[in-house]
């Protein structure tokens, strides 16, 4: 008897597996095949109807964190609560963005796919151009009034391909993200004022060196998070840092005069020992270690890191005082860092999803910018992660351990798909370091940063000439970085910069410029990123 049960079970499993495999085509109409009574013809947004059911893929950049510790994400308490609040039934998956190529190649594409960056990003593997996802313009108009109102135009432009919106962006209201940090306690020792120009910046670094600071300015390989001087002269060699000169689009490093000035400043810093002699091999790990050990006097980092630095550095040096100051300006009064693309992540809907469910999905994302959503993603569940006082004041249980911190970042980072991710105001307002961060964003960062022209989707010529393309949004092309480093180390004369531009042009740069100008003139995915 038992044996027959076994056979039956195996058969049942096998058929369900088969059904699962061949579900792609039939999936278009799940509401009808799966409703038990057949009577639920109500619309998905109707609270009493069936929950909107869809599979949902969210990207991460790391292979660790809260989601890797949960055996079944679909039974996780945050996911369940999210389903309850939004009246949805989500089949959630989380995957590293870098592994998307494999997912697309296997052709098992979820109903909703989130990805880091815009539609032309490398991880999307050209899927938007190949028509895997549906255009959303009409759906957004009828189902997402809040998103339409809130999301800035530059963000919509970034997720537009061929004149149609293909994704819902997690956006940045303030694309100025990076800031100049200084050890105020050391600055007070030198008796100097916070530097406002590059000359004053060098003087402060020299004074730091005199009082025995190990690393007056913290450098890092490829100038990543070490680009203060490049910013002051407005010659950042990054992906979205093209500019208009005489009506023509060109990369900012074409400005030889300012580039050579910037390189000379770096060379001075190198020669005088104001930066590490081996900066060409300082990895991000070395960089973080050096900062956390309190060895650096000044450095460049994301403003959102202020809370972390204040905690970590004071652990090593109790009297340390860390502040964000306005970035030192170059001779033309410019300064700061590159402005980020206004789109952090984008969420696409599979073209096989039927219109009814698609509408429900768009409403799901529209809900994410509501006060209820803000409260849930920021503070979690009442009685669990926070309590409310009689006056309505929220008492949030701050995460203490690394596990709790990861859980918080899963809830308010990973899971909170669509919102303004400049900063989490509710959360930051709760303590002093958070309020300092808010102040830095509102009073310092909003007034600096370098606008530029970027291309979404990317220029085709970039993939043809990988040496001339920025491998990451904040790293310059190999050929440019190589020459910059060699010049600072004195292996090539800085006065040779015009030759570097000639080399860039002859190795394929001409084609890049041609395509960039055509795209700009035709208003074809060429986006001007500027401060709001």
């Amino acid at each position: 008897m038992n044996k027959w049960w076994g056979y039956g079970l195996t058969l049942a499993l096998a058929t369900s597996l088969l059904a699962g495999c061949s579900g792609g085509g039939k999936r278009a109409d799940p509401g009808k095949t799966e409703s038990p009574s057949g009577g639920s013809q109500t619309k998905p947004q109707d609270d009493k109807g069936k929950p909107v059911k869809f599979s949902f893929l969210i990207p991460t950049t790391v292979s660790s964190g809260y989601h890797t510790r949960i055996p079944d994400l679909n039974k996780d308490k945050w996911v369940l609560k999210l389903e309850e609040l939004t009246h949805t039934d989500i089949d959630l998956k989380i995957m590293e963005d870098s592994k998307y190529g494999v997912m697309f190649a296997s052709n098992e594409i979820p109903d909703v796919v989130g990805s880091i960056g815009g539609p032309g990003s490398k991880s999307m593997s050209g899927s938007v151009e190949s028509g895997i996802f549906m255009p959303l313009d009409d759906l957004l108009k009828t189902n997402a009034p809040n998103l339409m109102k809130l999301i800035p135009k530059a963000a919509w432009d970034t997720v537009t391909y061929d004149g149609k919106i293909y994704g819902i962006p997690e956006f940045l209201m303030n694309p100025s993200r990076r800031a100049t940090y200084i050890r105020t306690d050391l600055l007070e020792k030198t008796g100097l004022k916070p530097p406002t120009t590059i000359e004053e910046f060098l003087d402060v670094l020299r004074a730091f060196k005199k009082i025995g600071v190990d690393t007056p300015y913290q450098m890092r390989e490829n100038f990543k998070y070490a680009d203060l001087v490049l910013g002051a002269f407005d010659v950042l060699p990054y992906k979205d840092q093209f500019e208009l000169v005489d009506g023509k689009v060109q990369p900012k490093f074409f400005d030889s005069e300012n580039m050579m000035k910037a390189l000379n400043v770096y060379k001075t810093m190198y020669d005088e020992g104001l930066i590490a002699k081996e900066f060409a091999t300082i990895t991000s790990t070395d960089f973080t270690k050096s900062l956390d050990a309190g060895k650096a006097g000044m450095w460049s980092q994301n403003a959102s890191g202020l809370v972390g630095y204040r905690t970590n550095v004071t652990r090593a040096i109790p009297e340390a005082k860390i502040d964000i100051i306005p970035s030192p300006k170059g001779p033309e009064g410019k300064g700061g860092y590159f402005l980020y693309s206004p789109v952090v992540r984008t969420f696409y809907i599979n073209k096989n999803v039927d219109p009814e469910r698609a509408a429900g999905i768009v409403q799901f994302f529209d809900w994410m910018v509501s006060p209820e959503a803000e409260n849930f993603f920021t503070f979690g569940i009442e009685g669990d992660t926070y309590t409310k006082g009689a006056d309505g004041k929220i008492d949030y249980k701050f995460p203490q351990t690394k596990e709790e911190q990861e859980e918080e970042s899963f809830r308010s980072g990973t899971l909170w798909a669509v919102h303004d991710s400049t900063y989490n105001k509710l959360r930051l307002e709760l303590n002093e370091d958070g309020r300092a961060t808010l102040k830095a964003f509102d009073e310092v960062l909003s007034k600096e940063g370098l606008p530029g022209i970027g291309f979404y989707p990317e220029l085709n010529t970039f993939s043809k000439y990988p040496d001339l393309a920025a491998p990451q949004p904040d790293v310059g092309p190999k050929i440019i970085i190589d020459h910059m480093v060699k010049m600072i180390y004195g292996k090539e004369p800085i006065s040779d910069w015009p030759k570097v531009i000639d080399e860039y042009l002859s190795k394929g740069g001409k084609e890049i410029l041609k395509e960039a100008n055509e795209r700009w003139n035709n208003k074809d995915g060429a986006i001007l990123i500027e401060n709001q």
Partner: protein
Amino acid sequence: MAAKLERSEQALYTFATRGHRWRFVRKYWPLYVLSIPGILYFLIFRYIPLFGSAIAFQDYNVFKGIKGSEWVGLDNFKRMFQYAEFLPILRNTILIGLYDLVFAFPVPILLALLLNEVRAMLYKRIVQTVVYMPHFLSWVIVGGIVVGVLSPSTGIVNHLLSLFGIEPIYFLGENGFIRTILVGSGIWKDSGWGTIIYLAAIASIHPDLYEAAQMDGASRWRQIRSITIPCIMPTIVILFLLQIGNFLDFGFERVFVFLNPLNSDNGEIIDTYVYRAGLVDRQYSYTTAIGLFKSVVGLLLIVIGNKLSRRVSGEGLY
């Protein structure tokens, strides 16, 4: 010697009739069954994927698949040879592979011979374990250690140099040092592990040979030259041929961890270029073409090496 004899015997063995053969197969059927998983492995994971190389001749698009993608002939290969940096990269790959063959290949043999001469068993075991160890470290860790040891400000090498009044040298910041560092770190990491096969070959040499030599009054040195080395020669030749086949596969990680703008002129090899152009940029067809080019060169080298070796020493892979 022994290997040669066996081969000729095999060649002579022919079956008189079909029935004979079947009886033979029936008698040893478990051996045939045992070989099935191995054969399947090579079919499924080595031979079938070869057809995927077709994308080297296409403009491959993951959504269209191999069937739907457009055929572009040799365009990807043309692009590879037209790339301005291709010759320097090929030169680096060949030079580094050559240095590796010349300097790193003999080290495990020497080490095995030396270990074999050690009398104190305990000491031998300890040394063996210590030289194996680095093999189990990943290249990222080895890279970190080497960068630390060679650092101009905190590294021990420059500290020692400064005792002799020599200015600190930024080893990783010089084109002139990178190949030495690449090959040297490989020797440190893997030569201990490489001794295993040689030690096994030495252990299988018949003690009679040594006893006879001792009777004739041969010294240790003479025994090594006249018995140990000739006896492990077939092993050395086979490993050498395999190494030649992997000549262009120096490995991506072990180079990538040491590369920076100051040394990439002499350090960048095909593998790191493929990473940059292909994996970072998702250019499947182009990088498959490069990979195919590498495999064909590897195959040619193996065929030529095998021919030469058979002519010179009588030993070969096949």
